[in-house]
């Protein structure tokens, strides 16, 4: 077959243009922005080049708060959601009746609008003048006192955020793990049963090693996803996340870019790059651990 270079590039042209303008160029540009000091988006001028933007961001109490919130969210939700997903997937894998029905139900949060369902969570947890909300009613039932989860103490707000985040990310993890479990060859279990292997040993010696690549995949994507948390928080606490004390790094980036405190693309860029560096570091560490632990 003749090489038809010109025609091939013609077919690629739309993709190349779009990726160039909206992926490649911005990628370079964001680094440039982050080192331009005192950039003014109206006049598009700046008066120096250096690390001031990073310095500013790292000393901004709002950024530190966002950083802390994000880390807490990551540390709580990633292990918890992965563990819970594993538990549910194992349970799903051990039953035959209603399996498909449960799987379908569990997947539902994946296709829902984060913002819209977030509102439902808000009214379930919110304490208003009219009602303490359903969750508080339940707490009262068990003898506890009412807590305002939306406008109340920090730990309560963090709890709702983590809860909602787990609710949102679980469908994907359950789906991946159930298909990973289903693909473990039956013969391994048959052989193990003939050898009189206990259930626990089967789980730790056969199941876990066999699905370990998928678990690590979920942990890695889980970390990346959780570090980029934003919409869930907005859904629960509104757009003024700094005031609610529930901002995340991504939220900080957007606030810096646009919104009431916006108009500072340089600060936004610096914050975005800090986030990227954190995510990259964690991912590399994850990959190094997984190289050691994953068996194939």
């Amino acid at each position, binding site marked *: 077959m003749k*090489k038809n*270079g010109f*025609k*091939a590039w013609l*077919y*690629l042209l*739309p*993709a190349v243009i*779009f990726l160039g303008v*909206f*992926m490649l160029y*911005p*990628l370079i*540009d*964001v680094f440039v*922005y982050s080192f331009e000091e005192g950039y003014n*988006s109206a006049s598009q001028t700046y008066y120096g080049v250096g690390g001031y933007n990073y310095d500013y961001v790292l000393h901004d109490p709002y950024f530190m708060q966002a950083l802390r919130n994000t880390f807490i969210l990551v540390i709580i939700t990633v292990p918890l959601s992965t563990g819970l997903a594993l538990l*549910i997937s194992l*349970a799903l894998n051990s*039953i035959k009746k*209603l399996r498909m029905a449960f799987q*379908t*139900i*569990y*997947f*539902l*949060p*994946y*296709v*829902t*609008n984060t*913002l*819209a*369902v977030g*509102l*439902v969570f808000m*009214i*379930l947890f919110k304490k*208003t003048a*009219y*009602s303490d909300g*359903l969750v508080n009613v339940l707490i009262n039932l068990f003898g506890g006192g009412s807590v305002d989860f939306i406008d109340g103490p920090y730990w309560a707000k963090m709890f709702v955020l983590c809860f909602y985040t787990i*609710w949102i990310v679980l469908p*994907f993890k359950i*789906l991946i793990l159930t*298909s990973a479990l289903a693909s473990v060859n039956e013969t391994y279990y048959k052989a193990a049963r003939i050898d009189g292997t206990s259930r626990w040993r089967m789980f730790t010696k056969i199941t876990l090693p066999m699905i370990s690549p998928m678990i690590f995949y979920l942990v890695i*994507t889980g970390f*990346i*996803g959780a570090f*980029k948390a934003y919409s869930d928080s*907005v859904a629960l606490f509104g*757009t003024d996340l700094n005031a609610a004390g529930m901002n995340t790094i*991504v939220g900080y*980036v957007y606030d810096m*870019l646009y919104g009431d405190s916006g108009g500072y*693309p340089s600060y936004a860029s610096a914050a*975005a*790059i800090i*986030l*990227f560096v954190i995510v990259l570091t964690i991912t590399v560490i994850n990959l190094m651990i997984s190289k050691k632990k994953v068996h194939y």
Partner: protein
Amino acid sequence: MKARKHILTVLIYILLSVWGIMVLFPFYWMLLTSVKSYGAYNSEYIPEFFTLAPTLENYIEAFTAVDLARYFLNTLIFTVVTTAIMLVVIVPAAFAFSRLDFRGKNAVFTLFLALMMIPNELVIITNFQTITDMGLRNTFTGLILPSVTSVFYIYLLKENFEQIPDELYKAAKVDGTSDMKYLLKVMIPICKPTIITIVILKVIECWNSFVWPRLITDDKAYFLVSNGIEEIRENGFGRENIPAMMAAVVVISLPLIVLFIVFRKKIMEGVSRGGTKG
């Protein structure tokens, strides 16, 4: 031994049911609240689990007090146009990578794969500036343009295209079929299942997109449903009209839930083949 196994099975079903309720309950609650009247809802200090007097007044309120119909229409336009343009961009690209031979193919493809690793958060800043500079804020063009390419879908489609046997292409060549006709008449129909999966995943993504529209629109005439919901949450229906809010939430969630019920298998397959959330 048998009794123990029995108990375990029961425990498993209980566990699964508990999580099932956790998942379904918010949906039930929004549906329930949306049919309670404003007065009834606010008079319930302890929320009722049923209502004996369902009403549609909240749905009327949702469509009249805020411009829900417009948000809905905007999202529909945004979703349809973005998905359509995306197909025009990714199908030829996947075809070029899978079927045509040209210099630098491997280098370009590697670059494409590398772009897959770049988080959206990093490029959105410049895109915001670009669109603003072009004066495209509060336009559909501004909303749509940065959302039309997906390296991942190009990759997915290319893999699928490559599974079509070489002989089919040779047979078509012998018959004098042009590359374009081969793509349209043979490759696309054969890969229809994958293309449908990609379209569905993209539709879900479009329908739920929030961050970019929020940055690029502040004129309510261009709000998408996510921004509409946020607007309703912040500024409400004048007063804290939770039932009306829930009616709006039901209306917004419904299309995707229907889509999910219809294409349940395709969506779950597609997502497990590499979709991620966020």
